[in-house]
């Protein structure tokens, strides 16, 4: 399932060990609609995989299955060899909106996970302090979410996800609500953290440019019912910076992926890759 690749990888891989394995997954909703049909692919340790596809292709549903927030109708999802529910300790989920608790200050939002897991207060506060520094929010630690901009809220959300030291990060269109400038900046920051922390990442997005900039591989899903249409290596060197977006290679990759995506949208790609 894991493809042989000549593409340079930013994070050294354990030999072909799929950290996330999705095999023959079908998801039907109670109302009878089929969200996903016979979806199979693997995500290796240290990979950054984006899920791309038109709305209705079930990409968010797939992410929820990996998080164990929803269960498969057929097939299996394993995370680090475990069921998704048992693997939750390794996983952090970042939602489309910041999903902050408005009654908690920034620092108490960031510490939420540790609090729920009953980590002792001194450890908790120290970890939170460090993490706020990492995302550059130490100055607003005592503020409430309503006093923050959209970008800052998202930063808090990311800090909260990182505090529990995940190995696997699942992101569901996390920057969709941000303006392009903040979005680009958040992407660069996410990549910096990814290289530093060596996570395995699954990232749902609508934006081809975002997917190309961030990913080692892109999975393109086709809709109605959701299925894998293409699995593409991103041919773009590491490390990627602000400058990467200006290069011809980047333009070219975005063009290539966009064409594949357009094919899926117009129904040309009926074959499962």
């Amino acid at each position, binding site marked *: 399932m894991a493809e042989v690749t000549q593409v340079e990888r930013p994070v050294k891989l354990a030999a072909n060990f799929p950290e996330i394995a999705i095999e023959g997954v079908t998801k039907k909703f109670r109302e009878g609609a089929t969200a996903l049909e016979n979806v199979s692919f693997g995500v290796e340790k240290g990979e950054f995989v984006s899920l791309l596809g038109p709305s209705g292709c079930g990409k968010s549903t797939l992410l929820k299955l990996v998080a164990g927030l929803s269960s498969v109708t057929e097939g299996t999802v394993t995370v680090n060899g475990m069921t998704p529910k048992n693997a939750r300790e390794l996983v952090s*989920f970042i*939602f489309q909106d910041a999903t902050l608790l408005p*009654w*908690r200050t920034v620092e108490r939002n960031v510490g*939420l996970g540790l609090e729920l897991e009953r980590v002792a207060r001194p450890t908790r506060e120290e970890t939170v302090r460090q993490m706020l520094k990492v995302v550059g929010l130490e100055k607003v630690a005592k503020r409430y979410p309503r006093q923050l901009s959209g970008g800052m809220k998202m930063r808090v959300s990311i800090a909260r996800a990182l505090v529990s030291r995940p190995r696997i990060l699942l992101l569901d269109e996390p920057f969709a609500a941000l303006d392009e400038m903040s979005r680009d900046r958040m992407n660069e920051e996410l990549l910096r953290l990814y290289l530093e922390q060596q996570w395995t990442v699954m990232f749902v997005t609508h934006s081809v440019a975002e997917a190309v900039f961030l990913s080692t591989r892109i999975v393109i899903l086709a809709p109605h019912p959701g299925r894998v249409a293409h699995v593409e290596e991103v041919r773009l060197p590491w490390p990627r910076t602000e400058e990467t977006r200006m290069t011809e290679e980047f333009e070219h990759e975005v063009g290539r992926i966009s064409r594949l995506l357009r094919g899926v949208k117009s129904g040309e790609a009926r074959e499962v890759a």
Partner: protein
Amino acid sequence: MKRQLWLAANSLVVFLLLLVVWQVAVKALHVPAYMLPGPRAVARAVVERFGSLEQSFLLTAEEAVVGLLASIAVGVAVSLMFAQFSLLRRVLYPYTILLQTVPIVAIAPLILMWAGPGLISVAMVAFLICLPPMIANTTQGLVSVEENLVHLFLMHKATPMQVLLQLRLPHALPNLFVGIRISAGIAVIGAITGELFAGSSRVGEGGLGYSILYASGQLETDYLFALVAAAAVLGFVFFFAGMFLEWYFLHNWHEGSRLETQE
């Protein structure tokens, strides 16, 4: 701030004007005092009988407070149960609406019969009238939590208790305070209604409702007016106490509960 003072001054002027018109009309048209006393007569009644007026005021306040606090405690407890057990909610929720539609004056005599006259039965009437808005609002807040927030808690292996007390309950606070504000207003009405039936164990002494009944029986119309005014003041006090609590607990994080005068 200036603008609000100006508005307050205007309301005061209108109030004083009304008093003047009232006084002049009563004098000019020779209305008998037992039908409609003038404001000066009412003021005199307030001063002369301040002791008993104060006593009635405090008694009614006490009954309303007991009823209100009980409705908050029971209302929140029932709502938490409803939020945790959706089957329970679906089966029992219609009855809380039923409770709201049964006219309180119809059950008040029953309560008097069961609990006997005095503070307990009056507070019970206030409690019953306060309970439905408490349950309806609090439950609404508890169950309307965004799905992703619940997911977030589940990702951290939160127990159902943690989801209830650390997510649903704080999320429901704004609704809970709406419930308290509504109930605070009607608690006084409930207590006075209760007193009309279950007033007092001693003749001539009781809360505002009881005294209103007594004063009208004695044709002490000036004192009756004083009692009505006292009841209105009591209602105001409760309402603003509820508003203050809401502001005090929520103004840090909840948009709707911040006073507009902050800028």
